[in-house]
Structure formats: C-alpha cells, structure tokens
C-alpha cells in the first residue's frame, strides 16, 4: 500500500491540536492511516489505502483530523475569484485531449509548503494519475508566465495547450541548462527517459505555450523558466490527461491543499474549440441515503440526530427528510460512487470497533467439493502407503518440465504437451505451468540427496497444458504422482503401490508395456485405468537420475486423478 510522509509538527499546527505523538498516531489509525515508521528527522511514514486521495498531504490529513475532533463539521468549499487567466485549447494530441487549470494566489511558498505540494503531486500521479498516463500535474510560478492576447479580450492572459512535432520547438526543461526539443528530452533527460513511453506513440507531443514561448511539455516535464521555489507567491496549476473528470478531481484535491495553506483560488477559463468551461470544478454532489440502510448495514439502531452528527463529522453536508438523508459530498471525495460509501463514513465516524459482534442466525449445510473429496482420499491412500505428501509449485521452467526429464513437448508421451507460458515471468525458473508433476518430484529428490533414504514421495496436485478446444486455450487437470527413491527400488515396488491405489478406488488397472524417454526401456508401462490410458509407471532412466544428481534408483508413476472417480 502507498505511504505518505507527514511532518507531525506541521500536522499539529494545521489541525490546531498540540497532541503528543502517541495520541496523534492513534487518531491517525482511526482515519485508516497506519503508522509505519519515521524518517531520521522525525517525519511520520503513514500507510494508507488508496481511497481517500485527499489525504495524500499533510493539509488533507489535518482537515480529516479536524472533522474527527469535531472542530469543523459539514461540507467546506473554498471560495473562488473570477477568472483572469484563460487556456486556449487547439490542435492538441488526440490521445491527450483534456486540460484543466487554476490560479492560486498568495501562497507565499516556504520549504515545508513546497515539500508537501511536491509529495501531493507525486502521490496523485502514482494513484489517480496512473503514473501520469491518465492525468499529469504541472505547477508554475505565475509571475514567470506571460499571457498573450486573443480576439475580443485585452487582458493578455491567455496561454495555449496544443500539440507540436517532436522536434517542433525547444525550451529549457527543469534540471537542465540547455535548450532541448521534446524529442531531445525523451532521449537525453533523465525525467524524459523515465516517461518517454507515455508519449512514444503520439503523432504530436503535448505542449503549453505562453506569449514568450513553450514552457511545459506535459505529461513529461515543465520548463525551467516557470519553476516554483521558495518565495513564489502566485501559482498556475494545470493538468492534462485522458479523462476530464479525473484531472478535475486531481485539481480539486490540489486546490483544497493550497487553500489550507492560505492560498486564494482563482478560476481559469478553458476554451476548447467547441466549448468554454470554467475551472477548477469545486461543485459538490449529492446522494441520498436511507436511514434503514445505515441501520441494517451497521446492525444497530440510530437516532436521526446522531446520524446527522456522524455525517457532519465525516465532512459531509446532510439534510434529513422522511427517513432519508440528502448527503452533500465535497469535490475531493473521489471514492464515493454509491450511497454505501457514505454509510461506510457513518460507520467509521461511529467507530466500527464499538459494534458488538454477533453470529448470524442463518442456517446452512456445509460440505466438500467432490473433487476435493477425491483429492483427499487419494492423498490419504498415498500416505497410508508410506509416501511423504508434497506440495510443489505449479509454475516451472521448460528446462525442468521437459529437457531434464528427457521429453519433447511436441511428442505424445505422457507429460508432454504444449506449455501454457507465462508472459513476463518473475524469473526463468517459473516460465510455464507444469504439464506433469514428476519433474517437481525429481527436483525435490535432487534437493534432498543429503537426507536419509528411502525417500518415498508423492503429490496430488495440479497440471495444465494448452488446449485450443477450450475457451481460453487452457486445459487443467489434477494429477497423482509418486516416486520411490531407495537403493533397491524397482518396477515391482512401484507397480505394487499403484495396484493398491487402483484397488482402493475400485478401478481396474492394466499396465501394458510402453516406451517413455524418462523411463528405462522394458521397465515402463502405460497406466491404463478402466480401459483408458491415463498415465505412466516405470523405473526412471539413469540419464534422468544422473541429470538430477541422484545416486539411487527411482521407480515412479503418475496418472490423472480423474481416473479414480
């Protein structure tokens, strides 16, 4: 889960309560922010579930605490001043058509505020912004932006979001000293290299211009000219993305954080070719929640007054009417998709752990799945025959599954078959699903040559292979495999056990001679159960034994569990 870093002193100041660390941690836990540790300079590292993205910075966490303490109630929406600035949208890359923006004045940037803003920006990128693909934030020092004029407006405060050729213009990006084209940035700038994939397939690259020229290359990097630092007073916050709703919510969260720092939000006109909008969008939404639904979800009776209080202490506005609540939701709440999300808020405010658990008075009959019963019976039979029951991974490498056992994937011997391959495997040891279990048993023997013999091992497990006849192309089966590794193990020994298994399940076993590359010729047979060939039994070939560094003979079998049904 993501971690957010919070300076406890700043938090105390913004929340308005001078609580000692331990109390503060307990209050944070109540919000679902779990204390993970702290940095050398005492900054709290808090783990959080990625629903309340408004708590990705100290300002949002402080606001939640103030609600929890009851210092503030209901919905708060920052007031906004009318727009002076304007974003003209023209010829933007079709993959990234949306933009939103706000001006925030009087922030008076300090080191603490800047650090918090940068963290909020990064965490929003990582979560809602889907690593900048869905939404990317650019914050600029407004004093360094020179707006231009446009038809019918003499304020001269228009900037333009547009698309340019990869080598169509140049600017000095952050952390650089030379002019670079967007293509250069992707090639030579460390930040550019990191985010190059985002725009690699774009025909034109996103670009933001002011009257001086190109000053931002979203979603990759801003220009150095408009860089925000300590002392910056007024900010331009712009966001571009693939979804208008997403970037508007991200902007709302940033505006609330800057508002908490004393910034004054000022609207920005966004002029798309076909429509004009005003941003930021700080509109609240409403959803109605039935009183019954709250009571039945929490399993308790609640008074209306109490319920209203719980809503308000969750930072929600509420009007009660005839057994139902009209709940007003602030724009930073990206997680509320359904009235149940508001019931959850009431439960959290009430304190879920204050609820008395009760065992539901619901009667049902339990039972095992048929295949699970069969697996258990087969496993018990094997254990009764003295086999050590094993549990191996279903993922394996082609080398282990085929090569080291001496079989060819394309042949029709038992254990072969086209592999179900894993795309982007974790390591070369786990590149496919095993087609049979004997390779796993051979690996276990190989890893335990220092342990006492006899080693009689078995597994009732899973195997899979490609099958074009199946929708999805995978056929799965349960398999029964056993191996006797002992100085005197022979075909006779393993056949004897196989016979016992078959007899236990009332199955008719035949073992006609066969050849199998994993086994010694003349000492291998097909396992035929109830007239169907379902496996193989024999003495493992010395080639396979030596390959696995084994110095004792191994007699082994494997067959389909389903044959025992």
């Amino acid at each position, binding site marked *: 889960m993501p971690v957010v870093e919070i300076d406890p002193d700043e938090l105390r100041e913004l929340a308005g309560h001078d609580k000692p660390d331990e109390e503060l941690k307990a209050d944070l836990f109540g919000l*679902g922010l779990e204390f993970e540790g702290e940095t050398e300079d005492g900054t709290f590292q808090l783990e959080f*579930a990625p*629903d309340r993205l408004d708590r990705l910075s100290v300002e949002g966490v402080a606001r939640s605490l103030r609600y929890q303490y009851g210092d503030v109630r209901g919905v708060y929406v920052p007031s906004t001043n009318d727009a002076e600035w304007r974003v003209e949208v023209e010829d933007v890359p079709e993959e990234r058509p949306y933009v939103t923006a706000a001006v925030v004045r009087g922030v008076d940037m300090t080191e603490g505020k800047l650090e918090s803003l940068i963290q909020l920006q990064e965490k929003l990128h990582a979560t809602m912004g889907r690593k900048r693909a869905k939404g990317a934030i650019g914050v600029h020092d407004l004093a360094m932006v020179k707006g231009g004029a446009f038809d019918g407006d003499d304020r001269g405060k228009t900037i333009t979001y547009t698309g340019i050729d990869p080598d169509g213009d140049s600017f000095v990006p952050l952390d650089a000293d030379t002019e670079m084209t967007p293509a250069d940035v992707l090639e030579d700038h460390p930040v550019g290299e990191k985010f190059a994939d985002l725009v690699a397939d774009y025909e034109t690259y996103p670009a933001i211009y002011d009257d001086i020229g190109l000053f931002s290359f979203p979603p990759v990097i801003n220009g150095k000219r408009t860089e925000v630092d300590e002392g910056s007073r007024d900010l331009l916050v712009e966001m571009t993305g693939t*979804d208008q*709703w997403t970037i508007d919510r991200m902007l709302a969260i940033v505006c609330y954080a800057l508002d908490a720092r004393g910034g004054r939000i000022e609207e920005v006109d966004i002029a798309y070719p076909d429509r004009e909008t005003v941003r930021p969008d700080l509109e609240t939404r409403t*959803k*109605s929640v039935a009183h019954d639904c709250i009571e039945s979800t*929490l*399993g308790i009776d609640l008074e209306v007054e109490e319920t209203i209080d719980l809503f308000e202490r969750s930072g929600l506005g509420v009007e009660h009417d005839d057994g139902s609540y009209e709940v007003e939701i602030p724009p930073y709440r990206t997680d*509320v*998709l*359904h*009235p*149940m999300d508001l019931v*959850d808020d009431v*439960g959290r405010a009430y304190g879920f*752990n204050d*609820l*008395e*658990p*009760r*065992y*539901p008075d*619901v*009667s*049902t009959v*339990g039972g*095992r*799945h048929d295949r*699970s019963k069969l697996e258990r019976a087969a496993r018990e039979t*094997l*254990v*009764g025959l*003295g086999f*050590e*029951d094993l*549990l*191996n*991974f*279903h*993922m394996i490498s082609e080398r282990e599954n085929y090569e080291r056992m001496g079989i060819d994937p394309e042949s029709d011997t038992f254990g072969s078959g086209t592999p179900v*391959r*894993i*795309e*982007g495997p974790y*390591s070369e040891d786990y590149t496919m*699903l095993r087609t049979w279990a004997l390779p796993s048993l051979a*690996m276990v023997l190989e*890893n*335990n040559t220092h*342990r006492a013999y*006899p080693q009689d*091992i*078995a597994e009732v497990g*899973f195997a899979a292979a490609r099958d074009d006849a199946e*929708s*999805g*192309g*995978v056929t*799965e089966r349960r398999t029964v495999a056993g191996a006797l590794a002992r100085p005197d193990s022979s075909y006779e020994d393993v056949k004897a056990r196989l016979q016992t298994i078959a007899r236990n399940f009332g199955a008719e076993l035949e073992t006609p001679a066969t050849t199998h590359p994993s086994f010694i010729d003349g000492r291998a047979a097909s396992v035929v159960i109830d007239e169907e060939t379902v496996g193989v039994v024999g003495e493992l070939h010395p080639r396979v034994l030596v390959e696995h560094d084994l110095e004792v003979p191994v007699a082994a079998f494997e067959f389909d569990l389903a044959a025992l049904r």
Partner: protein
Amino acid sequence: MQLPDAAVALLESASATDAKSIEQLATATDEKPETLTGAAFDLEADSLVALEERVEVSLELTDEGKRYREDGLPEVRLYRAAADAGAADDSVPMGQVIGVSELEGPEVDIALTNFARKGLGFIDSGELSVNADADPDSDAERAALDAIADGDADGLDDDTVDRLVERGLVEQREQTHRFVTLTDDGVTALMEGVETAATVGQLTPELLTSGEWEDVEFAEYNVEADAEPVTGGKTHILRQTAESVKDTLVGMGFQEMQGPHADADFWINDALFMPQDHPARTHWDRFTLDTDLMTDLPDDLVGRVEDAHRNGVGPDGEGYHSPWSREFAEEVALRGHTTSLSMRYLSGEEIGDLEPPQRFFSVEKVYRNDTLDATHLLEFFQIEGWVMAEDLSVRDLMGTFEEFYAQFGITDIEFKPHYNPYTEPSFELFGTHPTTGKIVEIGNSGIFREEVLSPLGVECDVMAWGLALERLLMLMYGFEDIRDVHGTLCDLDLLRNVEVLA
C-alpha cells in the same frame, strides 16, 4: 515345574551337600558359564538354590614371563654365556659376554641387575666374573614360573611370587567364583520333577499355531534402547492446515468451491468492480498467459458488468472514469485471488442460481507476481469465504470471523476500516498471535458492493473474507521461511519431523 533349559540343567547337576562352582557346572552341563550364572540368580530368587561367592586370587604368567620360561631367564643366560667365556676363572669384558649371550635391548639391563642380585657373579669396571658355586639350574624364580604355568602355585614361597610380580613376569588376578548348593526347596522341586521351557527370540507363527508359546520363555530385550528410525508417510503440513480449515468451515456450514486457476480477467477482476486501469491489473502484478481469449463469457452478464463500470449501479450510482474493453476482460491470467470462484458461484454460472441463505468457501492456490522471499511466495493458498443472506450487517461479519479465528486460537480480533474496490464497508482483520502476543494482520474482509452483486443478479447481502493459508500456518507454527515448506526447495527432514496438526 517348568524352567528354562539352563536352569533345569543346573538344578540337575547341582548337589545339596557339595557346593559346586559355576565353572564345574558348566563343564558338567555343557552350558556357557554366563548362561548358568543368570540361571543361578533366577533360581536363587526362587529359593531353589543357595549361592555363595568366593574371591580367589590366581596367578598367571605375563607374556614376558612365558617368554623367559621358554628362553630362560636373562640373568641365567648371561651366567651361562659368561661361564662359557671362561669367566669362572678370570673376569671377562662385559661386552664380549653380552655378544655371546645374544641378549638384546632391555634384556641386557634386566640380566645384569638380576645377575648381581642373585649372586651369580660380580661385575666390576666393565669386567664380569661368575660365581662358580652358584647353581642357576635350581633358580627358585625359574621353578616358580614353571609351577604357575602348570597351575600348581599353592606351595610357592610368597617372596618369590612377589618378586616375580614385581618383575612383571606374573600377574595376580582376583576372580569371584560362585558356588551353587541345592536348597531343600530345590531338592523337593527336583523330586517332584522339573521340565525344560525353551526361551525364544522371536515369536513365530509356528509357536502360535502349535501352542508351544505356552511353554516358552521370551528372551528379554533391552526395551530402553533407541530403535532404527522409520519415516512413515505424512500429509504435508500445509495440506494438514488446509484440511483443518476446511473441516472448520464445513462445520460452520460452508460449501466448498473449486474452479479454474487460469481464468478470464472478467472473473478475476471485472466482475469484482476492479477498474481496468487499476494499478493491480497491470501486467507487472499479474501473471498473464500466452493463450487465447476466453470468448465464451456470458454476454448478458458481461454487459451488466460493463454497465456497472461505466455508469455505476442504482439511481445515485456513479461509474469509473476508466476505459473498459471486452477484450481485456477476456484475457486469460492466473487468478490473483480465489474471489474469481466466488464470482463464478454467485453469478449462477457454476452450479446454477443460488437462493439465500448460502455459505461458501475455498482453500485454493492463487498467484501473485510479487517478490519471492521468506514470507512471500509467487503462488500460495488463499482461504476465501462468503455468506449470502438477507440483511447482513457489519456485526454479522464480525461475529462470523471471530468464530472462525477462535477455532485457531486467534482471539481479540480488531477490525480496521479499509478500502477494497469490491467491498464496502471493508475491514482489515487484526488478531493477537497465540504465542507471541503480537498484533498481526490476519485477513481482509467486507460486504460486497452493489456494483459487484447487482450485475451478478444477487439481490441480497453477501459478506466475504480472504486470508493467506500460509500466513495462518506461520502464525500457528512459527515457521521462519515459508520456502522450506512449500515448493521444490522443501526440506524432507523438516516435513518428516514437523509435528502433526492435532
């Protein structure tokens, strides 16, 4: 009376008047002395014989003594060599005599010392002369050696014997001799008649069928000694844990689910209201497979799920602002949780439509493309369970899980409000470790969202929870590295020696 072979033989050879030694009896009965000693103790315990112990000192020649008896005492050999060299008349250089005597090494010193002591002659300034009056042939020590060798040491002079012991030519041995005399009871028993009862090492089918077992004595074993180790088969400890969980849940009224490991993303994620651009759905976190799309998904259901993603559910519902494509939903991957099975069962696709109330569970493998280390595996078992009923509350959820975890000794469950895309409310479950007393995370739970249930056609409440089985095992057993247990790196000795789950 029936007695073992040796005891019968001993009784018959013993006398009521004449104490006989075990050795004598051994000769008489042809039994080994140690066998008879054992029998004698047994008979003494039964008051059939009296035992008397006598300690005897016996003399025996050492190897050196035996050699001198053969070759002659060194001093006598020196005397004879000197006499031959003419030392009876005049002194002869010592070196010359020694050369003739063929004495070697330490024998030379021994010869010289005793030569003088016994007055066989004189040694002065390297010259040697013999005493013509001496009579080495009648050397008392020599005679004693012969007498001891013949077992006839009774009349020997103590000084001579002491001297020989001192010289290391004779050894004194103390020996305990046991003498057996028949008691009156013994005589009576003999007169009434005793029979042989054989001792046997192994009870055989013949002994049993013939009835002979009634007349035999069983040789005693050392029952305290360790036996050769035997490693019988054992159910894998993780499997035992799984079985225990299954038993518990079946007992609580849960039915078991099974289903595909390689499944469509639709069942793994889309049905769970996981947006298609959710970070957990990138290929870095899941194991996608190189197979075909699963194109036979139920169209109606897919349509309802897509609608829930795009528009939400209910009059006040909102959808995700995320892309959604059927092709992504049809992609096949290894399931990252067994909630895919819950979706299949709840949808009615697996075993038909379900009417409340229902309880279902599974303990099955899931796959996560995460880090592989001591506490994380790429594939592990997930315990998944859900309860379907009208009007379930958070309190029912809490009561159910408290009951379940109590079965494994985990109590004081805490419910931390949490976020899952598919449940609301959601809780992480924390419990107190049974031995360390630490608070540990033990699962994730919640009530399925309407956005999940409504497309599946479920109109009542469903609460669900999940937990890694390995986590439960590690909590219960304190295993440090899960890789020792699960997978091909497993240690057979650990599996053989681990305590079973009782």
